[in-house]
């Protein structure tokens, strides 16, 4: 019985894993193959033929394209957006969880619903606003706009998180003479490090992912982020650098996937928990 169960489990999981992970295996295979091996329909694509494996594609990507600049831009925007998100979402999430009772709950749900308003509805008016503010083609435009979708979700995540910290701890600090904000800084926030880390990673990954605003606001190659730069700058007419392209798509995916695995349970709580519990 148990044996049959485990066979069935593997028989279900393995085909899904193969289909879901295949594109990444394929990116790796392509990134490591030489051009004369890649562009030859006679060669078996599942193995390395003459000239492969090679690091030429990675070298090309980092030395001949703006990829390094895009990584830098993405990191910069990500960092700035993480800071803004934490500054806005931490106090709000805490207050909604603790201080405002029933009304806070409704306000929290309202804030969460704004997460459902997608960038594809807002990019047209925002493109005009950004132009009026003279921010077009500057990273500041992304830094200003990205928190609009990271803050609502982060508030929601943190609200659920703060609810799991017993209020008695703060009361104890208050009794010991701490002010309310002091209790917040010295008792609550140290306990919320895991929740804060989750928000940091989720925010950062949303920034790396964002595409619509990035191609609407930014047009110069050296100001782009990776999600916008790779599809718009490395694919040009008929000149495709597929080896380098696949290296470019694989590099950000792996660290993000590892982080997602570590923080998976908290992400799930963000989507289903909070007021859904």
């Amino acid at each position, binding site marked *: 019985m148990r044996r049959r169960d485990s066979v069935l489990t593997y028989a279900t999981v393995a085909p899904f894993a193969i289909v879901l992970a295949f*594109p990444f295996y394929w990116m790796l295979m392509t990134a490591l193959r030489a051009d004369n091996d890649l562009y030859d329909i006679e060669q078996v694509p599942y193995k390395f033929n003459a000239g492969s494996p090679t690091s030429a594609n990675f070298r090309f990507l980092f030395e001949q394209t703006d990829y390094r600049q895009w990584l830098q831009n993405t990191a910069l925007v990500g960092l700035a957006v993480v800071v803004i998100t934490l500054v806005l979402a931490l106090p709000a999430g805490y207050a909604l969880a603790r201080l405002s009772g029933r009304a806070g709950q409704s306000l929290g749900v309202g804030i969460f619903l704004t997460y459902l308003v997608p960038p594809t509805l807002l990019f047209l008016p925002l493109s005009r606003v950004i132009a009026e503010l003279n921010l077009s083609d500057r990273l500041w435009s992304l830094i200003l706009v990205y928190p609009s979708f990271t803050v609502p979700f982060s508030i929601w995540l943190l609200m659920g998180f703060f609810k799991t910290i017993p209020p008695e701890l703060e009361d104890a600090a208050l009794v010991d003479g701490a002010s309310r904000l002091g209790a917040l800084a010295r008792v609550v926030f140290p306990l919320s490090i895991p929740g804060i880390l989750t928000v940091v990673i989720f925010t950062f990954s949303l920034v790396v*992912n964002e595409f619509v605003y990035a191609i609407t606001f930014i047009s110069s190659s050296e100001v782009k982020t990776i999600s916008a730069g790779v599809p718009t700058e490395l694919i040009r007419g008929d000149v495709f650098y597929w080896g380098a392209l696949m290296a470019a798509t694989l590099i950000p995916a792996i660290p993000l996937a590892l982080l997602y695995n570590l923080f998976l349970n908290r992400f799930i709580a963000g989507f289903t928990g909070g007021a*859904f519990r």
Partner: protein
Amino acid sequence: MATVARATPEDRRWQDVLEERRFLGPLLIAPAVLFIVALVGLPLGLAIYLSLTDATAGSLTGDFVGFQNYLDAWDSENFRVALRNTIVFTLVSQAIVLVGAGLLAHALVRNFRGRWFFRFLILLPWAAPVALSTVGFLWIFHSLYSVVNWTLIHDILPGGGEFYPYRAVNWAFARDFWPAAIQISPIEPIDPPQWLGEPTLAKAAIIAVHAWRILPFATVIFIAGLASMPPEIEDAAKVDGATGLRKFWYVTLPLQLPIATVALLFGIVFTATDMTVVYVLTHGGPFNSTHVLTTWAFDTGINSAALGQGAAISLYLLPALALVAILMLRFARRVEVT
């Protein structure tokens, strides 16, 4: 509950304001709310305003034209195609996701060797940036060097390789019963299927990419739902003799319905409002046959600079989003009850 008599001094200093729940709460929430209103609420209002004017790129205002933009959009052939595609892509991909995630979650919720590794593989599509993994699919569906076509030609369809799985199927099931036999015509290596160059195949490719990227997300939510099922219910079902499909139908499914609906609604929003997959994979081609509302709004509003038109096209999504929001609140309350 113990009530403590609290002295409230007449002369309150600024410091004390911060101690008062009545003031501290709104003070902590206000910055975030103001920011969201400024960057989500106002732009949404601006989008609605623009959709009622003939504004073009370069100006924020235009002449008021009433619902003309909505009517013009509705009359255009490309808009109809985009609307139909948005609906079809969303429904078909989410149907695939529901079935796939249901199967996968039931297997992954168990404890087995290598679970962490499998989970890592399965989560990859969700963690990777969409624009970049779609570029990966551009290469997988390439007109000349598509690995899908190479595999079909060399390993699956007749035509020059040595491993044909369909033969085993025919051998096992249909040797003497010809209607069930799998009949496949060979494809020519010099004229393989153009996955992104032929309207029907391009639509199938887009649906596949959407299903591929949402499946991991739905799976992890399903797993969370299954894991939160109280063990007593499992025991009760066992005592009552419910096993296998019966247990799934009468016990698991009703209990999982609210959380599964939340996953489905998120999936619908993520797919219907997404622009990235179609923009990168086909850019609406071939012959404008794969446009969705979002890419058509982008082409109209940004590339053709008809800001008002573009805003009207994208706002056709709003009623659907409002409906999803209402349903989500409904089901959120239901989850709360259980």
